[in-house]
């Protein structure tokens, strides 16, 4: 099973990424809920990297590599954007306030943090790596 993919920074590739994760995990017979949650967490990170970090510049690319080791799903998502995500700046959203002011964004990383067991962001120079981990049952 293919465990790596390279995509350009177009939001049309979000579906490609979801299908890639889904195809890889098909062998693990996860529940619909857990499979959808993992796909969603990956989709959220990739969408942020495409839209916010790389401004949908299709000359830029993301490299994704995934695997399962000892019943733990792991995915690495790499990019070379100059603006890296700062997890220390993360704040839990106040959804009632989002509704009141009609805010569209700002809940994607909340989904990622609530779904995955571990979320790591590392930056070396202009090279950024996001790693997500989830025990699968």
């Amino acid at each position, binding site marked *: 099973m293919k465990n790596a993919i390279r995509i350009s920074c177009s939001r049309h590739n*979000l579906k490609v990424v979801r299908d890639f994760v889904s195809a890889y995990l098909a062998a693990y017979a996860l529940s619909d809920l857990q499979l959808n949650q993992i796909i969603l967490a990956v989709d*959220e990170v990739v969408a942020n990297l495409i839209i916010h970090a790389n401004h949908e510049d299709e000359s830029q690319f993301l490299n994704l590599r995934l695997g399962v080791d000892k019943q733990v799903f792991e995915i690495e998502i790499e990019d070379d954007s100059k603006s890296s995500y700062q997890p220390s700046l993360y704040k839990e959203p106040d959804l009632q306030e989002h509704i009141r*002011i009609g805010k569209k964004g700002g*809940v994607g990383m*909340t*989904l990622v943090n609530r779904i995955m067991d571990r979320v790591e962001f590392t930056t070396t120079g202009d090279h950024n790596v996001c790693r997500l981990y989830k025990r699968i049952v």
Partner: protein
Amino acid sequence: MKINQQTTENTLTLSLDGELDASSSVLLDSELTKPEVLDYKKVLIDCQRLNYISSAGLGVFISHLQRFQDANVKLVFFNMQEKVHNVFEILGLDALMTIVPSEAEATAL
């Protein structure tokens, strides 16, 4: 993502078919932004064929909810698949939005 519309005098029903992500949510946002949407008393969202929703899709509903409430338009979701409902639950949005099991219950509200 396909969006089919049905209307009665007081109700607009949008049937969502496909996956609602950061790419396709733009289309839904355009539909809900139309001023005539506020002419109805209820906007029902049929989620039977909605197979996936990400934060971008949720954000479209979040961003219009207050506008609907200010205009006394009810926004009601029905026929939602469990995996889609679970995404609302993870954020606690199931407590802030009206989600009912069936079209009959949505119509009766």
